[in-house]
């Protein structure tokens, strides 16, 4: 599932414009739908078996919204997504992803194309929004454990001069690694925390869905799945 940087090939030339943002969201809807059962199963193990259903409902609604008309800027796309998720997902993930996309949108301003540093800023803003809402720290076995390494990897890549798609690919890879690394952790936030030590041995559903979303972002920018 990890995504390789694609500097030098056709993908690298992709501009992160409004069309990219729309592609990202359409791809996310598809990958969430494909992984609906997986996310339900992960949540079934340490939660209440609804994460896949919740996100599928939410991104399904995003698809309809996008069918109704395309917003003008990447930020406008993300804001639409934020509002839609907020009003259709519910549970913990709804407000958290809603806030993440809202902060991400805000960080982009009215740019029509997102630069490498903009990508890093967007992911950091999303992560900060989630932390502000959910008060989770790294290691609490939540989606923060995917967003935080993603934000750091994006920052590092951007500083190292990577292209915007490369920054996204770095973020996606780091999110994926972060999600995998939640497996041995004991949850301290969210529903899994009630399980105490029994929460160890399962990946966190929200961390896994975060990795899927960022993977879709990278792929929509031309990144290739390893």
């Amino acid at each position, binding site marked *: 599932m990890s995504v390789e940087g694609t500097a030098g090939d056709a993908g690298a030339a992709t501009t992160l414009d409004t069309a990219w943002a729309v592609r990202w969201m359409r791809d996310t809807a598809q990958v969430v739908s494909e992984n609906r059962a997986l996310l*339900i199963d992960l949540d*079934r193990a*340490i*939660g*209440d*078996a*609804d994460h896949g*259903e*919740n996100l599928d*409902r939410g991104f399904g609604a995003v698809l309809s919204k996008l069918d109704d008309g395309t917003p003008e800027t990447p930020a406008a796309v993300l804001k639409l997504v934020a509002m839609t998720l*907020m*009003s*259709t*997902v*519910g*549970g*913990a*993930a*709804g*407000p*958290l992803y809603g806030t993440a996309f809202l902060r991400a949108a805000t960080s982009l301003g009215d740019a029509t194309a997102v630069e490498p540093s903009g990508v890093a800023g967007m992911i950091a803003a999303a992560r900060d929004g989630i932390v502000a*809402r*959910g008060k989770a720290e790294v290691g609490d076995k939540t989606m923060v454990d995917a967003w935080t390494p993603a934000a750091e990897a994006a920052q590092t890549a951007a500083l190292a001069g990577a292209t915007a798609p490369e920054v996204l690919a770095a973020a996606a890879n780091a999110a994926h690694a972060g999600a995998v690394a939640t497996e041995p952790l004991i*949850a*301290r*936030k*969210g*529903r899994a*925390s*009630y*399980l*105490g030590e*029994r929460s160890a041995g399962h990946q966190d559903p929200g961390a896994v869905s975060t990795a899927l979303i960022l993977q879709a972002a990278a792929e929509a920018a031309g990144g290739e799945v390893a």
Partner: protein
Amino acid sequence: MKKLINDPRAVVDESVEGFGIAHADLVTVHPQPLFITRKDAPVQGKVGLVSGGGSGHEPLHAGFVGRGMLDAAVPGAVFTSPTPDQIIPATAAVDGGAGVLHIVKNYTGDVLNFETAAEMAEADGVSVRSVLVNDDVAVEDSLYTAGRRGVGGTVLVERIAGAAAERGDGLDGVTAVAQRVVDNVRSMGVALAACTVPHAGVPSFDLAEDEIEIGVGIHGEPGRHRIAMEDADGITQRLLDPIVADLSLTSGDRTIVMVNGMGGTPASELYIVFRKVAQLLEGLGVGIERSLVGNYITALEMQGASLTVLRADDEMLELWDTPVHTAALRWGA
């Protein structure tokens, strides 16, 4: 999985629709966004009470909408807290000018969605207070978790705060009474067999034929301890002990006790549990002043039960006895 449903995704809409038809004298169902208000909402001058949460816990919350209890219920998807776009209009719809109290069960999702909604309703000019119900003693280390869950105690908070609102108490007063109930109510549950979430299609957890899940939550999430099956008296003791300890119940205390079915347990079994609770509390010199035995806050068709104990004071008992007229709780009316 066999369920008396049509499309798994239509379960909430269709059952709330049926509920609305069956109780058309009591409630109004508002579709899209979905919420339920009492027929005569908003009641002018009365504090409005709104609660909500994931569906699958019926009769909670819609079954408790009506005189002397909730003004509005906001059902989310099955086991998924509702969204602000449902909570905001529900809040507005029951504001009779005296403000609105949100009764929120302590789950990350419920807290975040109600928090957002309260903020936006306030921005629209409605005074909103919130109480967080967190009565589940199964969650031990609240420092290292999302905190204790809100479970059966919610029913008692809704009833007693609802009575205070009906009596004409102001927003601060109703909030204070609700908080006092929260502070004095504790619960603990057990599952003998898991439930199956319609959209998931497989049981929420797997229990062997001789295992039970102590401290189970109402979202079909596994509990804290899995132990070998015991008899009803033994299990009841396991539910009651941590409640007594946590409330420091002592001789002379008066209580309201609820033995609640999780959805798939026969009433006869609940009464067997209640019998043991009564014996144990009597042994401690603790009085049961009022009681509820039945399905009040369920987890779909889960087999199991939960025990809720409220240390009651005079005012709570007085409020308890005032008329209530909802689909699932009714007396004096």
